[in-house]
């Protein structure tokens, strides 16, 4: 029998990172993810590994950059305003092709916002966020178990593709407690050696980690290299879950904690005789474009539900490519849609008007 413990989402993420071989954690306090630095401060020294509370999120992401440059597994976590501060560092990680894991426990915004949950950083996460033509792999767990599973995956993908990976969690998921099997992990990937990592030449040729390329055409070359990498990721790493799509007249699309709410609403809708189904993207980048496009080949409508004023819905529209109506329901600023809210939307869109 597998051993499960009751733990909150933030701590599950932290423990999973440690079990995935995290060498160093650097972070700055911000609600609603303070459980993570506190957990790391306690656990990392126990494992003989590095913990530093940095002076800012700006510093934290650069400490990660340093650790990544020497070939170590490094992570930082923050929440929306702090992730904004990290955008420069993430762009540098992408440009220098360094592996790193960054977790955003999203809260309400914009600006200082509040400490409630949100999904308002989807654009920031999936459209690069910082300057330049780059993408980060974005993983969206929808349970405490997935927070653990996807953290393991994040480190492997980061090392496999030499790229920063974002875990998109939220204030709700971070605080909620669910039973989790921390020993469970996805099948480990075969990872290439880090023959680019710095460590002192020790007789070998110099290695340089950089993102500035001034020589004629050289930066264009790097960008083509990055794009080729991103096409590979798109071809190989899409993760998506779907339920009762085949006969569905309405398909809901949602990720993270919102997908849990949608799942309950769909279950209730089916009981009412509405042919509803759902698609849950697990990788937000690469986005499950093919799966959603295939679903749009049958006559049905799509309803995207997010804790935002409509960000993932743009990707759903791109995937559907005009083959079906794509509608949106959401709320932001720390508000969470209720199952009743979502069910009401489903009913409005499907039941005949009296």
């Amino acid at each position, binding site marked *: 029998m597998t051993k499960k413990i009751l733990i909150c989402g933030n701590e599950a993420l932290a423990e999973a990172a440690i079990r995935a071989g995290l*060498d*160093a954690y*650097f972070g700055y306090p911000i609600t609603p993810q303070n459980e993570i630095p506190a957990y790391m401060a306690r656990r990392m020294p126990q494992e003989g590994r*590095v913990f*530093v509370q*940095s*002076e*800012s999120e*700006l*510093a*934290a992401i*650069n*400490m*990660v*950059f*340093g*650790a*990544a*440059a*020497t070939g*170590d597994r*490094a992570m930082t976590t923050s929440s929306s305003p702090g992730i904004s501060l990290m955008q*420069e*560092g993430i762009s*540098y990680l992408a440009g*220098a092709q360094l592996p790193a894991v960054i977790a955003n426990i999203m809260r309400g915004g914009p600006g200082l916002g509040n400490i409630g949950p949100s999904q308002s950083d989807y654009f920031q996460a999936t459209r690069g966020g910082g300057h330049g033509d780059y993408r980060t792999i974005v993983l969206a767990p929808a349970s405490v178990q997935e927070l653990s599973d996807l953290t393991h995956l994040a480190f492997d993908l980061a090392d496999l593709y030499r790229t920063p990976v974002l875990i998109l969690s939220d204030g709700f998921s971070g605080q909620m407690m669910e039973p989790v099997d921390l020993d469970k992990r996805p099948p480990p990937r075969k990872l290439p050696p880090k023959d680019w990592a*710095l*460590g*002192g*030449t*020790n*007789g070998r040729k*110099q*290695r*340089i*980690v*950089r*993102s*500035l390329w001034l020589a004629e055409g050289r930066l264009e070359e790097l960008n083509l290299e990055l794009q080729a990498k991103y096409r590979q990721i798109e071809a190989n790493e899409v993760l998506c879950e779907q339920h009762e799509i085949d006969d569905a007249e309405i398909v809901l699309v949602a990720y993270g904690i919102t997908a849990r709410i949608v799942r309950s609403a769909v279950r209730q809708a089916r009981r009412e005789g509405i042919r509803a189904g759902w698609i849950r993207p697990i990788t937000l980048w690469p986005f499950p474009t093919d799966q959603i496009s295939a679903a749009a080949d049958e006559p049905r409508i799509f309803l995207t539900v997010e804790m935002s004023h409509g960000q993932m819905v743009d990707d759903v529209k791109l995937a559907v490519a005009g083959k079906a109506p794509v509608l949106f329901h959401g709320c932001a600023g720390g508000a969470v849609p209720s199952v009743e809210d979502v069910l009401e939307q489903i009913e409005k869109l499907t039941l005949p008007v009296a």
Partner: protein
Amino acid sequence: METVFARTESLKDCPTHYCPGCGHGIVHRLIAEVIDELDIAGRTIGIAPVGCAVLAYNYFDIDMVEVAHGRAPAVATGMKRLHPENIIFSYQGDGDLASIGAAEILHAVHRAERFTVIFINNAVYGMTQGQMAPTTLLNQVTATTPRGRNHDTDGYPMQVSEILAVLPGSIFIERCSVYNPAQVVKTRKAIKHAFELQIADAKGLSLVEVLSPCPTYWRMSPKQAMQWIETEMVRVFPLGRLKGE
């Protein structure tokens, strides 16, 4: 036949892009000589700044990393904490270290991080064509102080060595210069001492501030620039060991 003098091994045999009369060439050479002398090339990692020395990795023949503007002390922290056996140094200008990177250097010292910082103070922003630096002198004319730096609107020159010497986490702070051969020798000694402290795993940060010429943006000849350091800069930035034996 015995070799009595050879090229500095840790410096690549190539021309640099620095202006005639720039101090970077001198300091790069001194650091490389010290690395050779202390036989640490194989385990040293250098951090290049954003500034004229951004391409320092084209000149030093050691593992190097180029980082975001001002973030070198944070990157160094990440590396040194994980690899205490490596000798880590950052090479930063006055914009990189004292302006955008002010928080990073302050906190690296505050945490008593164990790497070495070589701080090149030339009182101006060279790479971006001559704007005011935190270390620009009062009344000095720059691209953003066309009427001369006025403390009313532009603040005072920042004395980084004095500020960092106050913090318990700094263990060796010396300010030197390269305006004549005697000063160059003193600078080399200070750099060597800083690296020796790191090799001995001294529990704190070493910083060597080097007053360095920028003839181009001081609008002077190289000779005038060296003289300006000797007569004007040292009045605001006194030379000497501020901390440590």
